[in-house]
């Protein structure tokens, strides 16, 4: 096998102007991003926005319609087999053979990657210990609960010691404890220099990533660390302030809040309203105005935008840009 040129500072993933068309439909529209080694890269976006398509392009499952993708410095177009040797992939539905035992599943994936018997045995021991699968080795994988299936699937995907793992919605349908445990495991592994490419719908998971990107209808509209995204001018326009209004009557309060001049946008979050207001707006005035409408306000305090706020703002912005372009 030709040893590809490896530059030490090479990012784990570099995608330049990725395009994928299905007939007239452009599923992925000129996307560029880089993922550094050891990062946990959260790739977010609504359903059907192109997340899985991007994963398939990067893993060599789908040919690129345009652009350039390199995994650990290897061109996906030129050496897809070389790419596959170096990556692990865990799909949404945990691709396990349910009529095989935990050990048999691991052995199968190990053989597929042509691990020689001694190394295969060592790797299975390591993974079983790391993932806590020891008590289940001889159990049929169909009998495992969701969380354990997911750990087994992750184990299968990392048998061949890939430096880069793609996890497509790894926590969909998993209970909160298993979810927390999986993330603890990801942090541990990332400490060993493994890069993760994770898609998710959960905003709290996005907050944990060291690097996030947001894709919206085939376009990448955000890319950076969670903190850098919070400070984007589109999210926190100059001269505005984000506040949390805690009130027992959120629904009524919301409809009034939206009528108050100086409040640019408002959304309900549980027992409170997150609002973007002009920063010369006095918080006491705001409380007064709400009280006049008969709404008891427990607390109003400044708030840093959450990643959800970030993506909501960016999506609105992008939508208005699209509408402007269409007019």
């Amino acid at each position: 096998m030709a040893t590809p040129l490896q530059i030490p500072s090479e990012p784990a993933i570099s995608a330049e102007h990725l395009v994928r068309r299905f007939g007239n439909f452009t599923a992925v529209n000129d996307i560029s991003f880089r993922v550094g080694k050891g990062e946990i890269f959260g790739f977010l976006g609504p359903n059907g926005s192109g997340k899985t398509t991007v994963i398939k392009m990067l893993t060599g499952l789908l040919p690129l319609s345009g652009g350039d993708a390199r995994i650990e410095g290897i061109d996906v177009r030129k050496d897809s087999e070389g790419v596959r040797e170096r990556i692990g992939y865990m799909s949404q539905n945990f691709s396990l053979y349910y009529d095989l035992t935990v050990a048999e599943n691991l052995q199968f994936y190990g053989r597929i990657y042509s691990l020689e018997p001694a190394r295969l045995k060592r790797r299975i021991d390591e993974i079983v210990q790391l993932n806590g699968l020891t008590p289940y080795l001889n159990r049929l994988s169909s009998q495992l609960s969701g969380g354990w299936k997911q750990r087994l699937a992750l184990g299968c995907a990392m048998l061949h010691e890939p430096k880069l793992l793609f996890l497509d919605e790894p926590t969909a349908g998993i209970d909160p404890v298993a979810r927390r445990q999986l993330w603890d495991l990801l942090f541990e592994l990332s400490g060993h220099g493994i890069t993760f490419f994770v898609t998710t719908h959960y905003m709290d998971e996005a907050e944990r990533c060291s690097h996030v990107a947001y894709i919206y209808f085939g376009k990448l509209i955000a890319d950076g660390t969670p903190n850098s995204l919070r400070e984007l001018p589109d999210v926190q326009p100059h001269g505005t302030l984000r506040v949390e209004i805690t009130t027992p009557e959120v629904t009524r309060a919301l409809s009034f809040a939206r009528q108050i001049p100086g409040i640019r946008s408002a959304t309900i979050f549980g027992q409170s309203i997150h609002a973007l207001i002009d920063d010369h707006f006095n918080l006491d005035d705001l409380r007064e105005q709400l009280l006049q409408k008969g709404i008891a306000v427990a607390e109003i305090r400044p708030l840093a935008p959450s990643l959800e706020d970030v993506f909501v703002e960016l999506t609105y912005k992008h939508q208005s840009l699209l509408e402007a372009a269409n007019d």
Partner: protein
Amino acid sequence: MTNIFRGFGAVFYKEALHVRRDAGTLFFSLTMPLLQMFLLGFAIDTNIRQINTVVYNADGRRESRELLDRLTNSDTFHIIRYVENDHDLNDMIIGGKARVGVKIPVDYSDRLLHNMSAQVLVLIDGSDSSVAGQAINVTTAIGLDESLRRVVQDRASFAVDMRPKLLFNPDSRSPNFFLPGLTAIMLLNVTTFLTAFSIVREKERGTLEQLFVTPVRPFGLLLGKLLPYLGIGFFELCLILLFMRFVFLVPIHGNVLLLGLLSLPYLFAALSLGILISSKANSQAEAMQLAFLPILPSVFFSGYIFPRETIPAILYPLSYFIPATYFINITRGIILRGATITHLWKDGLALCLIGAFLLIIAARRFHDKVIMA
């Protein structure tokens, strides 16, 4: 490192595990053909005998009764009823109670005694062509024989004396003819169905997508999936042959080992067909329906039931693309005629080519299509 069979060993071992885990399905798919063979072997008699016959004997004298005796003695006709008029005779045939109606006119004996030509009306229900054909042949033959007997007293002085001799199956035993062909159809059924599910199951499960991010190559995957079933198919062939030999007492004139050897390319072709179906289908239900498609052409265009010579010229080439055509030639050749490799190597080669062709198409589909689904 371009090993186009990469992943073969791992897939082979895994498939074998699947088969072992699902022993119920395996048992079912192995015993069903034997059960069917048992039923068909006893039930189907390709020799037509004892055709229901209705007789209107308007004459009733000795000559006419002799003629009727000859008809019944041929074992082809079974007289179920005597009627007294034309209407009843017709009615029995229209009603499907009798397939053949014989009317002997009132002057039959008189004309014979005066050395005049006597006519007998034979009405035959043409709705089943093989029954009709047999009835025509036998009645014509009896008529000719009866005429000759009256003209030429000494039978030894016939100018031309045809002496037909049935080779290979002298007693015209139906199982001898029927079961070797049935073997081919049974094997086709078992193997196509077994493999038809093998890939589509992984497609539904999502494991196929997983396999495609591993370095496994299409040929490694397909052959790994195919070969365990080749073993099962071969085992099934052995069961069928034992059954045929010791339950139906069909003698095997040729070399059984050669039959075993030549069954491998047939199984390969049938399994490749199953794999192709599996790569085409998007669900197990679809695979099930597609797996039925090759059965009817294999039954009717392979020479299994109707001789290939009866196929119209434009459809005849079709029979060359049906694996069962070649394997039926092989089974009948070896079991009945004692044929050897010099007679049958072309059939073996044709099967290898068909199998390889189908497998390559299936592998190509993996590159182009399956991943997108």
